[in-house]
């Protein structure tokens, strides 16, 4: 067994470009998932029983089935009813729907962490409705929600690797491409793993710094 990293090292910029695409996919899916999750969590907290059970069904279904099979369903089954999608769209929609379920669950927990006495205290201090949302609820919720949300973002960045299965050229997809050109499999996937470790590590530290110094969340830097 001998390893030749030099053959692969000149592909490094190509892989880094893939990492950038991975982050983009994760970011887009996370943003969409946040919106879905916000709607879901609000419905669960304030909605009527029917809306609540609909949201529960959505969350239960997407949290208890694999993301990969969900994307398979979107990519292979929906064309049978005439909805054709490119792989990129299918992966993005699948990841967004999946993220929506997880993020709804996280945000709901955040909402329920606000205590009614906080609102009453704000009212006693003469805050208007908007003021109490702006100065009491939002800072509290962000502080509680930021650590689990950033954690979920890191997990989603790792989750983007399954886009390679649908032929997207993100980090893992590009690793597959180079692998079929050079057959230096172990070297390529070692470097790919290294890039994943590096980007998630940087993202963790950056998010922890934002959380600690801007939102005063309790987060460890490393």
């Amino acid at each position, binding site marked *: *067994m001998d390893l030749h990293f030099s053959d692969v090292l000149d592909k490094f910029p190509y892989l880094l470009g893939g990492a950038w695409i991975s982050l983009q996919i994760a970011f887009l899916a996370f943003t969409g998932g946040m919106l879905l999750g916000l709607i879901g969590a609000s419905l669960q907290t304030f909605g009527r029983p029917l809306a609540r059970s609909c949201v529960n069904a959505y969350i*239960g*279904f997407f*949290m*208890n*089935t*694999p*993301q*990969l*099979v*969900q994307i*398979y*369903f979107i990519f*292979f*089954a929906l*064309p*049978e*009813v005439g909805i054709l999608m490119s792989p990129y769209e299918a992966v993005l929609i699948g990841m967004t729907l999946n993220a929506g379920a997880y993020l709804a669950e996280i945000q709901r927990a955040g909402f329920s962490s606000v205590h009614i006495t906080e609102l009453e205290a704000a009212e006693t201090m003469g805050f208007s409705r908007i003021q109490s949302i702006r100065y009491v609820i939002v800072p509290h919720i962000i502080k509680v929600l930021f650590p689990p949300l950033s954690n979920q973002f890191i997990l989603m960045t*790792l*989750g*983007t*690797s*399954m886009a*390679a*299965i649908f032929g997207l050229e993100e980090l*893992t997809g590009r*690793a597959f491409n180079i692998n079929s050109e050079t057959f230096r*499999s*172990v070297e390529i*996937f*070692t470097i*790919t*793993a290294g890039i*994943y*470790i590096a980007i*998630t*590590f940087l993202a963790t530290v950056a998010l922890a710094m934002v959380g600690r110094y801007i939102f005063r969340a309790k987060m460890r830097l490393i």
Partner: protein
Amino acid sequence: MLNNLIQELPEFFTYYNILFLLQALLTTFLLSALGCIVGSVLGFALAVGRNATGKMSYLLRIPLATFTEIFRRVPFLVTLMLVFFVFQILDFKLSMFSVALVTVCLIGTAFISEIVRSGFESVHQNQWDAAFAMNFSYLQALRFVIIPQAWKVILPPIFSFFILFIKDTALASQIGVLELTYAGKVMNNKGFSATLVFGTILIMYFMLSYPLARFGQRLEKRLATTGNR
């Protein structure tokens, strides 16, 4: 569309097809359960090592922490490929199931060691100090003081990790392990409608995962600690 599906139903749900799918479901379950059991044992040992105190303990702590950090930060698919190709160039004759199992065990160990470590941390420092003041050794303190209090914190997240694994092992289909997702692909290639096949697969995953998830929630409620110091 709907008519086609209904026409296909009796052809799809034949005895052998159902048997095939159930066997695949069993593989999925075994893969995640074995990964979780091995991961729990090794992850526990790792956490004990990472928590060690003493002069030379950093020799133990740093490599173990590095192992955990590495396998928590590499996607399942990439780890799977790496294990697959490493075994290939080492010329091991392993079945695809074993390759997937090794991957699952590696990742399980890393994640569960982190869970166990944070469980140990949930026990207040005073408890450690008290145990050491009573002249307990490190392992004795763990055995008699820390673990009896920490296991309630450790067990629910390990269980939810097990459920997470049931879903993550879907990626093992990429190297050709005959688990539920791969079975779905096989059925789809046989010409059954993708809606029917993948719909069935999704429902089967749901039927496996949902009761376990509910059980996990109940477990969490029953074991909820009072946070005694």
